[in-house]
């Protein structure tokens, strides 16, 4: 109702107006992107692995000594672990979800195709893997003990039978029906037949680079004949703590010639998950703190400058009251004034937000800022502005009309 005269008055207070608008604009730009980063990180760390993660323990183990063949040693270890009180099942592998290190490979349907269809991770496992991981087999069958071989890691990785994830099956075959079909895991390689499909199993990496294939996994029935082995163990419900404590001693007693790192050598899967997403969670927390402090500082700035303006304009508020303005008129004058400034700020701020996002996008493989965050930020800042100006505006509305007759 009184937009035009407010704008006219603001033109006479350029510095203050620009300062508040600029502050709102910059805050919007940062808050939008920070919210976006939070969302991105939180959605990343709330992904599920497809495993039944509770009661699982991961062991990093390295055999020492001049030996070059490890098959018998691994078998002895596994037998010892499986016979342990409180252990449900266990297997040895090159890697597992969230380990942040493993084997990736291109998958083809035509062996000598130049370009692979997609990437996948390779998990070398045995017939105990599905039970230990708690992964659900939705089609076909599990490996049987006779299919599992010892494999020289420098040899070809292709094996005759594989189990793949549903996501990979859908990526490779238009109808998603992969059972009995043939896939190729190396350019020169031999064919592998899909004998089973599991519902879901994540890759070892949590970073963005594996984002495009984070549910693509191939399970191969082999144990790598190498001195480095990861053992995954499923404890019986309620036994995880006890098993976790007893495992290092059991392994050392079974065979002294090994190294299990003191830190992170034997850890619960909860620990594995916490470590894997440490940076993501930290980043989300940091951005959350930044948002909160920024909004508080911006609000404080608006309160400060608006109070100053009200103080500076006491006389003219009195005159307006004398000329017939109600308290409501004065209140709405200051609220509208703030709204107009904030509106200018959020318009510039939206552009800045996209600019900043563009920069992040080019530098750090982030995604395009979705409109929802900009709208959320805009609404939040407009509301913040209104809330911050409320107290000074109320003080202004309480200026008595008598003020008009006082000479300063």
């Amino acid at each position, binding site marked *: 109702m009184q937009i035009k005269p407010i704008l006219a008055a603001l033109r006479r207070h350029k*510095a*203050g107006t620009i*300062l*508040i608008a*600029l*502050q709102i604009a*910059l*805050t919007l*730009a*940062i808050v939008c*992107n*920070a919210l976006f980063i939070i969302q991105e990180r939180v959605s990343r760390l709330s992904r599920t692995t497809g495993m039944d993660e509770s009661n699982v323990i991961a062991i990093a183990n*390295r055999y*020492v*000594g*001049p030996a070059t063949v490890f098959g018998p040693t691994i078998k002895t270890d596994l037998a010892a672990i499986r016979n342990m009180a409180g252990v449900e099942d266990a297997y040895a592998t090159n890697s597992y979800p969230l380990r942040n290190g493993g084997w990736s490979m291109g998958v083809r349907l035509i062996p000598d195709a*130049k370009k692979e269809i997609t990437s996948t991770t390779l998990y070398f496992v045995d017939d105990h893997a599905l039970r230990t991981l708690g992964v659900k087999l939705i089609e076909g069958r599990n490996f049987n003990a006779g299919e599992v071989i010892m494999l*020289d890691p*420098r*040899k*070809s990785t292709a094996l005759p039978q594989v189990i793949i994830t549903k996501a990979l099956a859908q990526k490779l075959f238009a109808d998603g029906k992969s059972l009995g079909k043939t896939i190729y895991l*190396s*350019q*020169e*390689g031999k064919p592998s037949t899909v004998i089973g499909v599991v519902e879901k199993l994540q890759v070892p990496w949590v970073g963005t680079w594996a984002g495009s294939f984070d549910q693509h996994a191939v399970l191969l029935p082999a144990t790598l004949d190498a001195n*480095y082995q990861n053992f995954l163990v499923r404890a019986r419900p309620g036994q995880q703590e006890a098993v976790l404590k007893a495992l290092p001693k059991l392994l*050392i007693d079974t065979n*002294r*010639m*090994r*190294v299990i*790192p003191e830190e992170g050598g034997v850890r619960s899967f909860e620990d594995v998950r916490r470590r894997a997403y*440490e*940076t993501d969670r*930290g*980043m989300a*927390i*940091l*951005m959350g703190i*930044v948002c909160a*402090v*920024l909004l508080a*500082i*911006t609000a*404080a*700035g608006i309160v*400060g*400058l608006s*109070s*100053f*303006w009200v*103080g*500076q304009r006491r006389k003219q508020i009195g005159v307006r009251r004398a000329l017939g303005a109600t308290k409501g008129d004065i209140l709405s004058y200051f609220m509208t004034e703030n709204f107009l400034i904030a509106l200018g700020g959020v318009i510039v701020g939206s552009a800045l937000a996209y600019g*900043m996002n563009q*920069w*992040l996008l080019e*530098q*750090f493989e982030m995604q395009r800022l979705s409109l929802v965050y900009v709208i959320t930020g805009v609404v939040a800042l407009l509301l913040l502005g209104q809330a911050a100006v409320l107290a000074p505006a109320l003080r202004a509305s309480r200026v008595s009309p008598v003020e008009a007759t006082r*000479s*300063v």
Partner: protein
Amino acid sequence: MFAYYLQLGLRSLRRNPMLTALMVMAIGFGVAASMTTYSVFRATSRNPIPQKSDVLYMAQVDNWGPENTEKGEPPNALSYIDAMALMRAKKASRQTAIYPIGPSVIPEDAGRLPMRQGAYAVGADFFTMFDAPFIQGGPWTSEDDDKHASTIVIDRKLNEKLFNGGQSVGKQVNLDGRLFRVTGVIDEWNPQPRFFDVVNTGGFDDAPGVYIPYNRAIDLQLATNGNNNCSSDPGEGWDNYIRSECIWNAFWVELPTKAAAADYKRFLQGYASEQQRAGRFRWAPNVRLRGVMEWLDVQHVVPPESQISLAVAFGFLIICLVNTIGLLLAKFMRRAPEIGVRRALGASRRTIYAQFLIEAGTVGLAGGLLGLILTGIGVLGVGLVFPKDIARLATLDPSLVLLTLVVAIAASLIAAFYPTWRAAQVQPAWQLKSN
């Protein structure tokens, strides 16, 4: 006069405690946010070997071709064939091939458990090139290299574990059942970022404790403990593996002058075209010779989290500045009558500037002190966001303390400039008349 202005400033700040508190907090938070993130950025982007970074170079030779590489960038490591060829050519004043290995040290005392050691297979030049600080003995010789000798250099920590810190030169160390003769012990040495092995460590890791000759490691068929990338199947067995185009070696050279560097670059070009002529490379020579800092930059050693948070913190500081400008403007202009009186009493514009800038500087100092406390808390909290290898490098050292205070005061003076200018424009006569 300074004391008088300072007194005026302090009095004025006490008069509006709320406004003053707001400004001090804005500056404090802004400065703390930027300094905390800067401490991480500084730690990750620093020069790990300032005294020699301009004479050390990492060599790259493209053995994969445009089909298997991206944007014309050669692979970030070398094949054994190329590393060996460059090593034999000895075209630089010093050179070394490097790859990480993962041996376990088996103590002589059978009662003690084996220990896992971070280790590298390197050439004899490695230690002199990178200024590794010896506390006993020295590097093995290049004859040892040529003889594929079983020699070893260990660090102080391992020397303490194995030999209780005593003289160990000439003694034996057992790595996975094989004996190596100690030629020297180096102090704890862990240049960060680890420029000579960025590819496998990302730049940050615990100090390695063992170094053995490259040639001996190859003889023992010790596979790399780091990344191994193959563009095609190497075939079976170790001999096929080291003859393959799989890449897993770093190759560093020391070139004392720019001219020597240019010569070496030409040598690399020549080597690559030779390989092309021999039919091994089916593409034009594509080589790189990069200095330490350039190499760290190309390998993105600074984590994206550090860069993003530094950028965000910088924006944060700017917002705090804008905020402070607004608040100072309010504070100064509220005193327009006072300024008018002062001007009428003979204060010049310059003295008004001095008075108000000193007042702003006081706010900056207070903000800086608050910022210092918050930075301290922030640095402690760095571990929440960044991996521990990086977090422990971020510290509140004297230079950061000084920088924090300087930034705070500079920021508040910059913020004060416009409001002070406005205050100095107040006309004496006009303000003395009734408003």
